[in-house]
């Protein structure tokens, strides 16, 4: 087993989650209530990582992070090294690729809150932030949980985009999925098998636990 790769994947998944979840809450909440006519385009754009091949997403990200682009140059000027083929680049790519996995469940959760509850919160004298914090987030948390689990599990297993923008640098960008690929290529089936099984178990357990929690919560909500 490649402990370094497993640790790196866990770190990548954790950081992605930390960055993405607050973003998903704001974006999902906004999409749930907005009446802008551009909504289908915005939703379509955010869902692109679901339908595009990881190589296509990876290619564009690589171009965006390269030193030909403003983003790449800015990052290099600030941090001192290139964004591509670094852990930072991996986080950046991972956040973008996971947007639909995080935003969609959050958006659906906010959409399922009855509008009269939002209005009741206003009539209670709550500010927007108070209403979000005290009313909407507690009601939307099954969606947030789903978003977190999906993002975490998906980041652990992400392969294509990570390979495109991160390459395969042990300790820096070699995630567990890439390490499995690497070990398989070098006929180290024992190590590849162990890591694949670990990934399988982690994914299964997190998904099952989250589905169970959400189901229990929704049942309670329905009986309310």
């Amino acid at each position, binding site marked *: 087993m490649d402990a370094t790769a497993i640790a790196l994947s866990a770190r990548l998944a954790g950081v992605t989650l930390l960055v993405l979840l607050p973003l998903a809450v704001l974006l999902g909440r906004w999409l749930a209530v907005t009446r802008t006519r551009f909504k289908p385009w915005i939703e379509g754009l955010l869902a692109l990582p679901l339908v595009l091949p990881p190589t296509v997403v990876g290619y564009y990200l690589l171009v965006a992070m390269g030193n030909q682009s403003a983003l790449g140059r800015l990052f290099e000027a600030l941090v001192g090294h290139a964004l591509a083929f670094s852990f930072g680049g991996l986080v950046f790519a991972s956040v973008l690729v996971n947007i639909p996995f995080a935003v969609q469940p959050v958006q659906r959760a906010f959409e399922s809150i009855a509008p*009269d509850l939002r*209005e*009741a919160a*206003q*009539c*209670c004298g709550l500010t927007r932030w*108070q209403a979000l914090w005290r009313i909407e987030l507690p009601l939307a948390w099954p969606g947030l949980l789903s978003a977190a689990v999906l993002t975490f599990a998906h980041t652990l297993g992400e392969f294509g985009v990570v390979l495109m923008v991160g390459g395969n640098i042990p300790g820096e960008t070699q995630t567990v999925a890439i390490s499995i690929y690497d070990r398989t290529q070098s006929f180290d089936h024992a190590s590849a098998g162990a890591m694949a099984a670990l990934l399988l178990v982690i994914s299964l357990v997190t998904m099952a636990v989250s589905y169970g929690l959400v189901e229990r919560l929704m049942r*309670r*909500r329905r009986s*309310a």
Partner: protein
Amino acid sequence: MSLSLDLRHDGPPLDFRADLPRGRITALLGPSGSGKTSILRAIAGLLPVREARITLESEHWDGAGVRLPTRARSIGLVSQHYALFPHLSALGNVEMSLTHLPAAERRARALEVLALAHVGGLEHRRPHELSGGQKQRVALARAIARAPRVLLLDEPFSAVDRSTRKRLYLELRRLHEQLRNTVLLVTHDLDEAAQLADHLCLVRHGRLLQAGPAADVLNRPRSVSAARLLDIPNVFEGRLTREAGDERLLHWGPHRLRVAALDPALPDGLLRWAVLPSNVLLAHADRAWNSDLENAVHARVLEVVELGGEAVVRVQPAGLADAPLQLRLPTRAIRRHAVSRDADVTLCLRSADIVPLCDDAAP
């Protein structure tokens, strides 16, 4: 006057001006889709209206470049389905409207209003553990917790059974006696409005049809639409004339009704008029025809339907085949006068009970 409204909007259409008296229960009565709830939502600041002027005494809520957000308006709202926060207990729901108070005061005040709304002891129950009536009381407690100057009730009794509703009417009246705040009750239920409201606004297509003290509006509709809204079946057409000695007569088929109580400014000619079923009197059969009876009308009974202690009697006035008249009488009066189908009866239409109706286009 306390709460003054001038609202104009396109979707839903609103062209509504009214003043709601301070410290009274005003019912906004109208059919479904008449814009009642939109008016209430505009007052709460939940519906942005194209042109709005809302003032509570000298305080501008809307208009003149001001638009106070909902949380800054001194309102409490009970919506049709109560909108209780499902993740919070009854106590938590009420405390949510008291976030401006320190935590200790918040708890004490929440318990106080829950007791006031007769749901003391249920403070730890979640909404799904409460009955319809209890939910309504918790919602009311939450709405009054901040001691709002205006309490908005959006068909708050529509989701509870009849017996609970009667009890809640009583409790609301009692609570209002204590709080004395301005209450706006949106309802399409005429009985509810009649039982609860001091002041009545009739609304149709987003416009005010008539407003005034509830007893006045209920007994004296001003237009055909208002009469329909008040479920008054006896709306007729007659011809008004001025006789010698300035006496005014309303010609209704072969009948000539004396209408001394009518506004002298009403012009002669075609007049629509109404009479409430409860104001049509039945004369004793042995009374001399047309002696001292005011506006006696001979009629034949078409139908008698008993509803509880009351009977609805449909009669056909002599010479008026197309103008059936409805009366509401206590059942004992039916027995006493031996009123039955095809019986001939004598009715009395008192001048003071003949209500002239203007055309709908006029205000």
